[in-house]
């Protein structure tokens, strides 16, 4: 258990009584008489549970409850309000403020202890006693102590009870591994104890050993009748009892988890609804004597309000009440999923057959005449609670099966998804390999015939020039030019396919460095050109070094090519001052007609004749592919004879433009695209 229990009550009697009860139940506790004392205690120590009186001399207990609920450190602390309950709305107020339980005074000691134990261990892993815990029920102290010592010697843990009623309560509360019960007890006898255990879904698998008097054969029959697993005569040696016990425990073997089902004999709460205060009090007293916690409501409306905040185990409902009345209350309770399962017993006047029929029609589970004595009422209530428990258990089992089935289906689905994913990856890999070997063949095998066309063309020109006229020589030069043009196309196509399928690694880079090195290579390749290159500072970006180099080779290569006719060629690379970081490459060259801008980035699209500027129509398609692999987009602006500017971004900007970039749709019209190859 994680902490002590704090009892806050100004009544000395209540404090002493609760401290005794808790101490007897082995639950360490501390008592305070005022809010001030309680606050000090709470500041110093973490309690597992606070049992809190509502009316205290220095203030309202609910105030303290609110403080506890707003203290993060006390998040695991349960609160049980304990109060003289005059109005149902006090109860509702307490529960909605965050109390875990509300017990009215006068309280049933057994109920308070059992609930205290439940609440105090909530949040801990339930530290249930092991299978070796034995509950011993016997009223003879001498025999009890002797047997207890023997059991403990044999390393069992032992719980003891002096009466059948106490024994049942302990069994429900602590769930021992076995019960040894004396046949003759002051209240209910041993056979009855066993019978009640057998009627409880949570306990019925519990092995029970009945101790019988020496010569009473009839008692043995009754014991077996009640469902005992074994019986031993009390005058036999204690060793025999131990042997029977251990055999019984062995055969008990695998039973369902002991905590799966709430015990029938555990703490139960009953809501009684009646407008007659006298009848209500009488009823409450009678049922409290059986250990039930009673919640009293004076009208159907009150009952519904309470049920909205606190579940109960059974409802006793008067048919004739002012306000919405019993039938309507019953109908409403049965129409709400969370309260539908609560058994309802209608209370009717003895001769009111119509009311009975209407009550059952409204969904009540049972009815009873108000004039019946409380014995009958108690039996009916117990029967209803038991029925509910069986239903709960069945539902639990169904849910368990359903959950298991669901898990199996989910597992199967997950496995299938994984398998199909693996097969897709495999397919993709094999497609990539195919593409790879295709590209390789293209690279190698398409070039060889081109070399022959070009080579033998040249040989003809060199060796057989005297046999060809000028037209013939001219045609041969066309043959050679075509071969060389096709060779460039192949090179560009290969580069494009490498851009699409190659590795992609994003890292911080300085685009300025790339731009300058590409420009240096261009300058070296065209020694006659004088181009002014302006590169902005701070062209930092995140991208793939290799791919961006290829992009700038194409963009700067284009700018270089299209400024070849300029007197003062100027190429500028920079970044726009915007959130998206839009980079640009601007030249003052031939430019292009915006009317054809939509064709710019298409494969093999050219806006200039080969005579003006040569090219394959693949360069800008390659650049666009590189930009898209970065999640960015590219567009262009220009005018004929007034240069061109290419803009691009390198990430989606996490904005609404992302899907546009992803789908490769055209950017807005006013910045329409430029040609692919120019």
């Amino acid at each position, binding site marked *: 258990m994680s902490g002590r229990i704090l009892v806050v009550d100004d009544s000395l009697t209540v404090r002493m009584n609760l401290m005794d009860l808790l101490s007897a139940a082995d639950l360490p506790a501390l008592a305070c008489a005022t809010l001030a004392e309680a606050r000090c205690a709470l500041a110093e120590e973490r309690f597992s549970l606070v049992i809190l009186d509502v009316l205290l001399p220095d203030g309202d207990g609910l105030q303290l409850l609110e403080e506890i609920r707003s203290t993060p450190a006390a998040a695991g602390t349960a609160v049980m309000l304990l109060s003289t309950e005059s109005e149902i709305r006090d109860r509702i107020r307490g529960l909605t403020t965050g109390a875990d339980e509300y017990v009215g005074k006068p309280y049933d000691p057994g109920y308070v202890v059992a609930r205290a134990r439940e609440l105090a261990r909530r949040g801990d892993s339930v530290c249930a006693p092991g299978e070796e815990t034995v509950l011993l029920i016997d009223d003879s102290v001498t025999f009890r102590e002797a047997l207890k010592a023997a059991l403990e010697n044999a390393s069992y843990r032992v719980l003891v009870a002096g009466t059948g009623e106490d024994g049942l309560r302990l069994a429900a509360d602590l769930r021992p591994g076995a019960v040894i019960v004396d046949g003759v007890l002051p209240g209910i006898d041993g056979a009855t104890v066993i019978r009640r255990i057998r009627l409880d879904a949570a306990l019925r698998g519990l092995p029970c050993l009945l101790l019988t008097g020496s010569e009473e054969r009839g008692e043995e029959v009754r014991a077996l009748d009640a469902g005992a697993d074994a019986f031993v005569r009390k005058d036999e040696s204690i060793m025999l009892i131990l042997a029977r016990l251990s055999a019984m425990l062995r055969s008990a073997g695998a039973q369902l988890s002991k905590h799966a089902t709430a015990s029938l004999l555990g703490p139960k709460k009953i809501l009684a609804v009646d407008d007659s205060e006298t009848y209500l009090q009488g009823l409450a007293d009678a049922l409290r004597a059986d250990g039930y916690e009673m919640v009293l409501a004076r009208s159907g409306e009150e009952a519904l309000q309470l049920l909205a905040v606190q579940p109960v185990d059974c409802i006793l409902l008067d048919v004739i009440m002012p306000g919405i009345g019993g039938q309507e209350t019953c109908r409403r309770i049965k129409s709400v999923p969370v309260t539908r399962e609560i058994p309802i017993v209608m209370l009717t006047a003895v001769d009111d057959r119509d009311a009975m029929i209407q009550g059952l029609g409204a969904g009540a589970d049972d009815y009873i005449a108000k004039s019946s004595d409380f014995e009958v009422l108690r039996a009916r209530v117990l029967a209803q609670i038991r029925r509910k428990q069986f239903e709960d258990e069945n539902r639990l089992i169904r849910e368990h099966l359903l959950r298991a089935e669901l898990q199996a289906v989910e597992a199967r689905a997950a496995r299938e998804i994984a398998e199909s994913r693996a097969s897709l990856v495999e397919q993709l890999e094999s497609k990539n390999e195919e593409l790879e070997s295709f590209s*390789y063949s293209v690279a*190698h095998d398409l*070039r060889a015939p081109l070399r022959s066309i070009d*080579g*033998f063309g040249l*040989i003809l020109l060199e060796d057989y020039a005297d046999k060809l006229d000028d037209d013939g020589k001219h045609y041969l030069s066309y043959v050679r030019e075509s*071969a*060389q043009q096709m*060779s460039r196309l192949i090179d560009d196509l290969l580069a494009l396919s490498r851009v699409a399928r190659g590795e992609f690694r994003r890292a911080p880079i300085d685009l300025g460095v790339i731009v300058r090195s590409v420009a240096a290579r261009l300058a070296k390749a065209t020694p006659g050109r004088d181009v002014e290159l302006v590169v902005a500072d701070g062209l930092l970006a995140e991208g793939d070094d290799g791919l961006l180099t290829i992009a700038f080779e194409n963009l700067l290569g284009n700018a270089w090519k299209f400024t070849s006719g300029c007197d003062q060629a100027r190429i500028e690379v920079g970044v726009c001052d915007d959130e998206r970081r839009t980079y640009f490459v601007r030249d003052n060259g031939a430019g292009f007609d915006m009317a054809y801008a939509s064709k710019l980035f298409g494969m093999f699209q050219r806006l200039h004749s080969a005579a003006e500027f040569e090219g394959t129509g693949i360069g800008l398609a390659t650049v666009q592919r590189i930009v898209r692999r970065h999640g960015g987009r590219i567009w262009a602006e220009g005018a004929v004879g007034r240069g061109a500017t290419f803009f691009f971004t390198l990430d989606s900007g996490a904005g609404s433009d992302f899907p546009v970039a992803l789908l490769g749709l055209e950017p807005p019209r006013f910045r329409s695209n430029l040609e692919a190859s120019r």
Partner: protein
Amino acid sequence: MTHESIILLVEDNPKDEALTLRALKKSNIANRVVVAHDGVEAIDYLFTPGADGVRNALPELILLDLKLPKIDGHEVLKRIRGNERTRLLPIVILTTSVEDRDRLEGYRLGANSYVRKPVDFAEFAQAVIQLGLYWLVLNEQPPPVRA
């Protein structure tokens, strides 16, 4: 024994063979050129003794294409480098491929040089001339290995 200077050209494409031979002729390289049309012929020439039991003279330079029938260029290269008698022979890979993996594998297996065959025949002829000049005139051969 007088040393006849031989170039071994390993080339399966007859047109490329013709172009290469013409380029060599035009550059006034007078060496005898032996042509192997696939990897097996190249290996046979280098390692298999003739009917008279005499092995062919080793070439001073091997021009090796990579994509060859039967045994490819990389495998030929591996066998030449794996044999004591031939492991120091200068080998120039002369191929259409400029794929990274081909270049890497060529150098890894011990090629002395890797030259791409340009499509433009004028450039191709220029490359062959430079190769001949460099490897047969400028470059000093390793001393002959006694088998």
